[in-house]
């Protein structure tokens, strides 16, 4: 990817023309760093403050989840999928359950689909809240926007704990439905949380959206062009901020998303500011989906009655199932050879693939912009390294 013109920053440093090798500084934004969202290392070569090269180093959180899954049963891998993108365990479970259901041809009852959509959209809300909080934190706002976002996130995590028993490692989906049904009063509590959410979004927008510091640091920073986004396999809010109109909920028609009306926000500049705003707008759309879904939850079984917990052996074959996870396209590719363990189990991690363009976005920018760009890509190392 060529970087023919280096964009100039607002606060101009004297540009060095033709730096010699002795004047370049190699900086290791090392695995332990407060702003790298986990154990992630970037070897940055700097010319003064300008980035000349950036090579990410992966693998600090590699746990070889794919090999462990080859020795576990299909159900035994479900708690491990919680720990992939550990902020959004329910959508990880959902993608895996979807892939297995495609592989074995399992039907999901209607109430289970509604529960999946409700918990999935709640997960999207709390993930985006977490992300915009951390993006502000990484840019130096010392915790205030982060804690406002986390205040709302705590309410959603309390909902998850009341439903599944755990705040983050929910282990909620099963093949053919969900693990546990709604306890009494949960739906009313959830409706209250969702009704309060737009007030938080309004306050947040007033706090930040026209904040001059935020605009200076994020507008025209890390611009991702539409062509590069599609070619590099970028998905999720990062691609939509660059104008790529691709939302898997609308394209694949999976689950019951066709019954809900919601819009897909698109950005036009593809910079950090657009990625931030797209996520804010997506939260509003998720609130709308939740309101529609929670009005119409039908009665019925929550799991396919023909599915047994133990002794699940799908027929030989393969399947690729994907969903619109909060971070992008999360897919699971399963190859079965008829035994209770998968022959090949592959996670398509949106965070890793979204990092393909990190160097392209950061070239020519200052070191401080790297942090903003990395924050806007929304990575979780559990997913990048598996």
């Amino acid at each position, binding site marked *: 990817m060529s970087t023919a013109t280096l964009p100039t920053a607002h606060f101009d440093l004297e540009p060095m023309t033709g730096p010699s090798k002795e004047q370049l500084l190699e900086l290791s934004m090392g695995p332990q760093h407060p702003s790298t969202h986990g154990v992630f290392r970037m070897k940055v070569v700097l010319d003064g403050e300008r980035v000349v090269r950036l090579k990410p180093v992966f693998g600090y959180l590699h746990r070889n989840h794919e090999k462990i899954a080859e020795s*576990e*049963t299909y*159900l*035994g*891998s*479900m*708690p*491990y999928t*919680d*720990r992939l993108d550990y902020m959004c365990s329910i959508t990880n479970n959902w993608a895996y359950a979807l892939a297995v259901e495609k592989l074995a041809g399992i039907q999901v009852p209607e109430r289970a689909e509604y529960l999946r959509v409700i918990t999935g959209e709640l997960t999207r809300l709390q993930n985006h809240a977490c992300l915009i909080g951390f993006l502000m934190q990484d840019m130096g706002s010392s915790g*205030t926007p982060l804690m*406002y976002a986390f*205040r709302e996130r*705590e309410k959603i995590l*309390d909902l998850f*704990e*009341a*439903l*599944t*028993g*755990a705040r983050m*490692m929910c*282990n909620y989906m099963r093949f053919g439905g969900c*693990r546990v049904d709604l*306890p009494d009063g949960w739906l009313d509590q959830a409706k209250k949380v969702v009704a309060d959410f737009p007030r938080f979004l309004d*306050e947040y927008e*007033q*706090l*930040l*959206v*026209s*904040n*001059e*510091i*935020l*605009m200076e640091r994020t507008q025209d920073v890390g611009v991702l062009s539409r062509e590069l986004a599609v070619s590099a396999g970028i998905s999720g809010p990062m691609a939509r901020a660059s104008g790529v109109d691709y939302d898997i909920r609308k394209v694949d028609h999976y689950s019951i998303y066709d019954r809900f009306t919601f819009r897909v926000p698109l950005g036009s500049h593809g910079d950090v500011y657009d990625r931030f705003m797209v996520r804010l707008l997506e939260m509003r759309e998720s609130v709308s989906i939740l309101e529609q879904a929670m009005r119409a939850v039908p009665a019925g079984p929550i799991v396919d009655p023909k599915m047994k*917990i*133990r002794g699940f052996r799908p027929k030989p074959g393969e399947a690729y199932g994907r969903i619109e996870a909060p971070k992008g396209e999360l897919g699971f590719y399963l190859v079965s050879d008829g035994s209770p363990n998968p022959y090949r189990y592959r996670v398509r991690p949106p965070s890793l693939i979204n990092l393909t363009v990190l160097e392209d976005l950061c070239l020519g920018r200052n070191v401080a912009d790297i942090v903003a760009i990395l924050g806007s890509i929304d990575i979780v190392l559990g997913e990048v390294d598996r």
Partner: protein
Amino acid sequence: MVGEGILKGMAETARNFFGSFVSKDRLTTVQYPEQRELRIEAARDFPFLVYDGADWHQGMRCVACQICEKECPPKCIFIEKSKDKKPDANGKPQFYPAVFNIDISVCMSCQICVEVCPFDAIKMDVDYDLSTDDRFGGLLLNKQRLSKSNEYYRKIHPTEASAVDARLAGERARQEAKAKTAAEARLTTTAVQPASGEPR
């Protein structure tokens, strides 16, 4: 005006700050450990074994079928079956676990052991203050440390425990009814049969 956005943001912060003196939902800090949040009923931490009655060894529901050991994803349960049998709650002689260890430094609280247990013998506890200073054995819970009574289970998970109790009581009633009809059938057949050698 330059800085207008920042001023708007600071008005928001001020609203939150002064609002935290008057409204509860803006002041969300819980002064742990003096204050604790209300525990949510469905929360789960680590497994424990349920026993009925007063004697933890006699009333243990676990029959060492080892299904939880096979299904546990990180393989943190270690069971050794006993050689003899002891009577269970219905009076039927069952095996019991001679050794039942769970390594809670490995356990990931996924609750699959609870889901697959056919005897409602293992359930999820809510105790998380389990830190110890013995790195190599202190987090290996044996049968005795794992056994907690059914009253404790009713206290921590009331809705779940009442559902389990109702199901087990229903099964016991069904077993007793079956035994009674079988006993009655035997009585009537022996009444009809003449004693050997006696004329009718």
